[in-house]
């Protein structure tokens, strides 16, 4: 099955999480130390989300997010089916195995991405809560 109906739905759900994380005083600063621009390229439905951990936004949040095509030069590009992205934020995708199986293709300095994994652990519990708040119970994973 596909969890997201279209690009807008994808941004609503995954964006819901990213918007929360970039204001989170625990996780936000830890991610910002990576100083990378990371672009997620999704298929089925198509879409892209760019997070800029490099340029401090200066608005009290810890990094900026962009939905849809944009011109920022990305240090790391992670391509995957949107469903894989959805499952990832539930903590249900082993990133190393996914890279081995080409479920996720990562271009760029992989060690820097792997280093972020401990910092994003707490987001796995946040994502289902955010989906509930958004009335997206249908796409919750058991």
């Amino acid at each position, binding site marked *: 099955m596909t969890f997201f109906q279209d690009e807008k739905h994808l941004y609503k759900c995954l964006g819901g999480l990213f918007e929360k994380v970039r204001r989170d005083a625990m996780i936000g600063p830890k991610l910002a130390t990576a100083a990378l621009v990371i672009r997620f390229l999704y298929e089925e439905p198509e879409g892209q989300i760019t997070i800029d951990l490099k340029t401090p936004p200066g608005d009290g949040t810890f990094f900026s997010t962009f939905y849809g095509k944009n011109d920022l030069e990305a240090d790391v590009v992670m391509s995957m089916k949107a469903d894989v992205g959805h499952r990832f934020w539930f903590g249900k995708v082993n990133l190393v195995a996914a*890279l081995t199986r080409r479920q996720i293709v990562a271009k760029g*300095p*992989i060690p*820097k991405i792997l280093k972020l994994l*401990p910092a994003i652990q707490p987001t796995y519990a946040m994502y289902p809560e955010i989906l509930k708040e958004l009335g997206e119970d249908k796409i919750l994973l058991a």
Partner: protein
Amino acid sequence: MSTAMAFPDFFQFHLPVRIVFGKGLSKDFSAELSSLGVSRAFLVTEKFLHTLKIPDRIRQALESAGVGIAGVFDEVVPNSEVGLCERGAEAARKAGADCIVAIGGGSSIDTAKAINLLLSEGGKLLDYQGAQTLTRPLKPLVAVPTTSGTGSEATMVAVINDPDSQSKISLVDRYLTPALAVLDPELTLTLPRRITAATGMDALTHAVEAYVDIESSPFSDALAAQAMRLVARYLSKAVIDGGDVEVRSALQIASTMAGVAFNHSMVGVIHGMAHALGGMCHVVHGEANAMMLPLGMEYNLEVRERKFAEIARFLGLDIRGKSDRDAGLEGIAFVRQLNQELHDLAGLPTRLSDVGVSRDRLPEVAALAMTDGSMFYNPRDVAEEDVLAMLERAH
């Protein structure tokens, strides 16, 4: 808790390289070459090997198999760089090569992988950083290792220095794996004692780290275990009598087995430190591993006691009646003793201070080591202060 083995949730074992072994095989591997369907080979090697007449030997083998020599690139140095790979690729392209033959140690084989990537796909090396970014096979790469340690002849990994960003580019892609690895122990008969010792310890470190790290699997374990047995039994012998082809064979085989093992489960904190010591202080890779190996094993012991007990057994120790922890400690003592033996026999350095590393650089080395990709695969979460403590103890 269950006493059954805990199997990983997922693992893969995929070996795209054809491995052939034979004493003197590098003189004639025409049968294997013919199945590759290539006609113009580009040789990637190190100048120093000319004194041993090794590139000539491979050249003759290729020519007598009907494969023409498109060109020879013999500029490979111990820590290969982006510019060097791009020059090599340009030369290979101009020469109209349809396959690459790497002759040498790890740096030659890694450089050949990068050259093959650029020759086949074009572009800049930096564009291919990442994991499994390629979508189709490259030109066939033949690897003929002349040391027994790197394992690169059997791996999908190439590590290349990028002086511009002062970092290492790691390319990880199954299409980088050589199509053919020609293991000929005769090529290693004249290796100097210290290189034999250091490369052997590199192979042992690959096996130990592959065996304990978070991505280990039953398949990689089997190969790592056998590699440990062979290195433990034969490394000192190879240093004492380098001309013994049986002993050299054992190490050549162990090195490739350990390569296949870590190609699947990766390496850990020991390589993380060795990479940083190599990058910042030019410590020879195998020597850095040898010095850090017992310390890294001690560091990981508490999270992998059972596996370290097994390692002691693979190293040839009798661990009956001992607790896992005690057995593991004996394995670590064995590695220290092996290092001492190699020091006495071959002058293998046992302290970082012996290889010109100054103590005040250690904090920087520790910080750089923390950025190394291998740290992620280590079974115990690595803290920078612990890395610094290990480096200080090795100094």
